[in-house]
């Protein structure tokens, strides 16, 4: 028996990234509960907000902004952050992480594979949310490329945080919801996900500027209204920096988890 000859490192990482990503998407497609939750929950939220805004002629135009908040707060938050935490915990509990450790899998390929899978889920969620919103009457007035860039940065930020929470705070499946809800839900509320930030008192508004969800929401809502890259540069830069930071923290936490897993 002759073992497989290794390819070049970059080709191998790309192949492994694709393998990890395809596996995760295939697993998700079999987990109906996740699929329903990730699709039906944002859709229901959208319908709920539509019935609030569209019943009142004075706020009908505000409905254009609603899909952005729903996508960031009710869709991507759960699939990309909660999903990543759950994925890591499951790998550890089912001992598949250990099996991956004795395979030639490059750690970077695992990280990239999870991110790519989350991007695929995010793309599907974006399609569902904006399709429903469009059917109800909401319109996206800005640059689609800008919208895609904001969503991609949000996915990266959520995945990095997911690795951080999954590796550091959630040792078992039962631990998944605790840290995500405890930190995530206040960030969603403070980030103006479900209501206009004009309702926030001054001191909370100052605090909100430090909340990455606030910048995700504001960037996507303002992009929806047709604002340009240049107008959104402050939020985009904040998001870029936060996404980079959360990925770095996620990688560091993941590496530490692998070291601990090797010793287990």
């Amino acid at each position, binding site marked *: *028996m*002759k*073992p*497989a*000859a*290794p*390819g070049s490192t970059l080709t*191998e990482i790309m*192949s*492994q990234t*694709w*393998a990890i990503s395809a*596996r995760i998407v*295939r*697993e998700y497609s*079999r*987990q109906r509960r996740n699929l329903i939750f990730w699709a039906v929950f944002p859709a229901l939220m959208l319908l709920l907000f539509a019935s609030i805004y569209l019943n009142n002629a004075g706020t009908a135009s505000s409905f254009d902004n609603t899909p952005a908040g729903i996508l960031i707060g009710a869709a991507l938050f759960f699939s990309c952050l909660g999903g990543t935490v759950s994925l890591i915990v499951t790998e550890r509990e*089912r*001992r*598949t992480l*250990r*099996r*991956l*450790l*004795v*395979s*030639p*899998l490059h750690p970077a390929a695992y990280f990239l594979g999870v991110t790519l899978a989350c991007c695929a889920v995010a793309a599907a969620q974006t399609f569902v949310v904006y399709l429903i919103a469009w059917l109800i009457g909401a319109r996206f007035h800005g640059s689609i490329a800008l919208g895609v860039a904001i969503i991609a940065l949000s996915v990266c930020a959520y995945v990095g945080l997911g690795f951080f929470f999954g590796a550091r705070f959630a040792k078992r499946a039962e631990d998944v919801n605790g840290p995500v809800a405890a930190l995530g839900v206040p960030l969603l509320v403070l980030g103006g996900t479900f209501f206009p930030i004009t309702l926030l008192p001054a001191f909370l508004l100052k605090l909100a500027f430090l909340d990455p969800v606030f910048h995700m929401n504001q960037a996507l809502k303002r992009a929806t209204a047709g604002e340009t890259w240049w107008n959104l540069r402050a939020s985009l830069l904040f998001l870029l920096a936060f996404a980079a930071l959360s990925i770095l923290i996620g990688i560091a936490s993941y590496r530490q988890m692998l070291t601990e897993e*090797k*010793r287990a």
Partner: protein
Amino acid sequence: MSVLSFQNISKSFAKKRTLDNFNLTLEQGEVYGLLGPNGCGKSTAINILANLLDPDSGTVTFNGLPHNRQSRRCLGICPQEIALYRDLDARENLSFFAQLFGLPRPRRLSRVTELLQLFHLEQFAGIPIHALSGGWQRRVNFAVALVHSPQLLVLDEPTSAVDMEARHELWHIIEQLRLQGCTILLTTHLLDEAEHLCSRIGIMKNGSILRQGTVLELLREVPALAIATIEGPEKHCLRARAVSLGWQMRSAAGKHICLMPQTQTLAQVVQLFSGLDLASVTVQPVSLEHAYLEVIDGWQAS
């Protein structure tokens, strides 16, 4: 030429020395059984082989060269627990791990088909792992370790928690792999499994191999040709009679184990103990279990 060699490996955790000057050499094409009580260091040795742990001292060589990440690719490890993706089916699990090992698509497809046939998994290939019984899951678990056709296969209690029929099928597969030239390191608590499959066996305790050899060589560790197990209420009298016959005594599970230097029939043993109240007497040839207990000093004090 040796495939694998552990040379003077030591490893400690906190203040406990888990491997203590551990030495082991595996020759090409042999099935080596590693036996020992829980906590004796078997898993640590496997973890060092899998590059999950670094030894504190000593070296591991693979095909005569220092063992590293590159040579780890020649290694297939079947873990004791089922480590599979439960929502994927057998074919998808195999294909996924084959891709991680860099098998090109055509070779991957043919290898997956080969393994499904070898493990008689064709009819279950499309069923998610969570819907399979434990025995079939274990087969897939085993098959995944073979997906890249490893030169050395490490099987960590591969047949634990499977029924007798499945166990014999897995034994048959292990024999087939050996015939194909695959070197196998097997850990097990099932002594009949080790006896049936292994060309050599090493018995470990406290982090090192105390004895190793073929089954016949290990049986010579017991200073007897046959074993009589005797139970009765007059324990002291039974013991005194056995000692007077020149037999060495051991004790296990409250029974007197008599090491008989000659083979005796059951009738002869009963005759030798005539006049004493006997509850039960059995006579059997020396087995690997007796050799194992003798080597690890696992008998209870008489």
